[in-house]
């Protein structure tokens, strides 16, 4: 859908409520045991639909980052299924895994841009999964992808940064450029692992507003891990609480109880 999205799409905030339609990403009974014996994920099931921004909350070590990493197989899940586009990601490997990953973009706590390249080139590298030719293997970027990258930067209001080197961007700018790079993948799912943890409050706000707009306007399934409940309450359509690897709640933003959130952070052994 991003493929064909016109450049003039307006990203003004809307009150559009989401969660309509079928789930794009279906996580079923996911379990992750670490060799140390720690059960980081304990029977977690989660369905995320297009147009929906789901925020995962939890204390340190609750398994929220492990959940995202298991989805894209940066970490191997021990059992369970991750259904996406008619296949089980947990069963794929090699080229088929690479192909499936193309439709899932991931944003990290740090922007992870290549520091000595321009913002524009960094965005265009998000499309490399679609181009496996000799030129891109030797460091070239396809011209049409550079143009598409410029289009993405324009849509995110970042076109003025296009030719700035990544190491000169502020934290908030870099993170939004990283989101643009994710969009260059033409994803259907956007995973964000504490994307605002190293940003000041203003930049954090901008990034979360952007993620929500992308969910609504581009009909992406957005799963965002956050540390700050107040940010989650302001931006999420749906809230999921993890504690010691178990899912404590999965509720629409409007019906979450403050006590439920507080319970996630109460420190007591499992």
């Amino acid at each position, binding site marked *: 859908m991003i493929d064909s999205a016109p450049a003039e799409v307006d990203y003004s905030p809307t009150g559009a409520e989401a969660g309509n339609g079928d789930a794009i990403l279906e996580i079923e009974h996911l379990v992750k045991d670490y060799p140390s014996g720690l059960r980081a994920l304990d029977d977690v099931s989660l369905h995320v639909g297009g147009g929906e921004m789901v925020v995962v909350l939890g204390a340190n070590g609750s398994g929220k980052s492990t959940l995202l990493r298991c989805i894209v197989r940066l970490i191997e899940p021990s059992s369970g299924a991750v259904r996406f586009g008619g296949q089980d990601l947990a069963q794929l490997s090699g080229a088929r895994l690479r192909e499936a990953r193309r439709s899932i973009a*991931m944003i*990290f706590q740090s922007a*992870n841009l*290549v520091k000595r390249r321009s913002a524009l080139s960094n965005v265009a590298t998000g499309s*490399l*999964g679609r181009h496996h030719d000799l030129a*891109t*293997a*030797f460091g070239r970027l396809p011209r049409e992808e550079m143009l598409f990258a410029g289009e993405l930067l324009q849509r995110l209001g970042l076109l003025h940064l296009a030719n700035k080197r990544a190491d000169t961007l502020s934290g908030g700018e870099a993170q939004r450029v990283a989101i643009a790079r994710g969009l260059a993948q033409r994803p259907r799912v956007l995973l964000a692992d504490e994307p605002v943890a190293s940003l000041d409050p203003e930049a954090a706000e901008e990034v979360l507003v952007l993620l929500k707009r992308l969910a609504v306007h581009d009909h992406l399934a957005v799963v965002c891990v956050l540390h700050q409940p107040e940010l989650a309450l302001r931006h999420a359509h749906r809230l999921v609480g993890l504690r010691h690897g178990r899912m404590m709640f999965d509720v629409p933003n409007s019906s979450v109880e403050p006590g439920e959130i507080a319970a996630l952070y109460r420190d007591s052994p499992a």
Partner: protein
Amino acid sequence: MSAHASVDAQVLLPRPGFATVLWRLVLTIVGAALLGQSLVVAKARPQDLVTGVTGMADILRRSMPPDVQIVPRALGAALETVDIALLGTCAAVILAIPLSILAAENVTPSRPVYLGARAVIAVARAVPDLIWALLFVTAVGLGPFPGVLALAVHSIGMLGRLFAETIEDIDMGPVQALSITGANPLQIVSQAIFPGLLPSLIGISLYRLDENVRSSLVLGFVGAGGIGFLILTSINLFQYRQVSTLLILMFVLVTVVERLAAHIRTRIR
């Protein structure tokens, strides 16, 4: 005194124990013995410096004034010396880049490949370029080309190791970010690893070029051409006035290359 009342001097600055004192004594004796035997083995006789003064003065007198007639021939040889270093360094850089990727622990495709690449680097490094030159002169004959080969092989080892260490220090964030966009390993190397590495690679390579110009002068002594070969010939013919000209030229050459390389290194970031 009262200012230190809260600090127990005995605890903060304890007297060295018996074992420590003994250990220091042993180390001192071993160090002295080591140095002593090297003086004997190397047949160091400081008195030779005194008796040799007349010989030195004689050579210096015979070297003056420098013979400028040899300059045109020397300039050609100097170019050859620089070209041997330039070609050897370029070949080494081109081959060391892929080798260093295989030999960097964080990006190597597999453990056996890593060990293999490290072994190649170790052998190329361990054998000095002068020995490589002797081998290549025997194999392909006298002239500048065996010099190029010798510098290339030795430099692959030196550069391969430095490049690999630089790669091991890179930020793996962009690498991870690109790998989950579905980029393949070659793309990750060329698009995420290489751009961040470029200034370091250029800096290291220029330093190597500087070293190789010096080495290439010495390689001339074993028949690999260039200004070194001219110096050898002149010494063998007792043409000390030519030798002094050549030495001055060599000094200028090495200094210019070194300053130039240093200047370029400071300009790239």
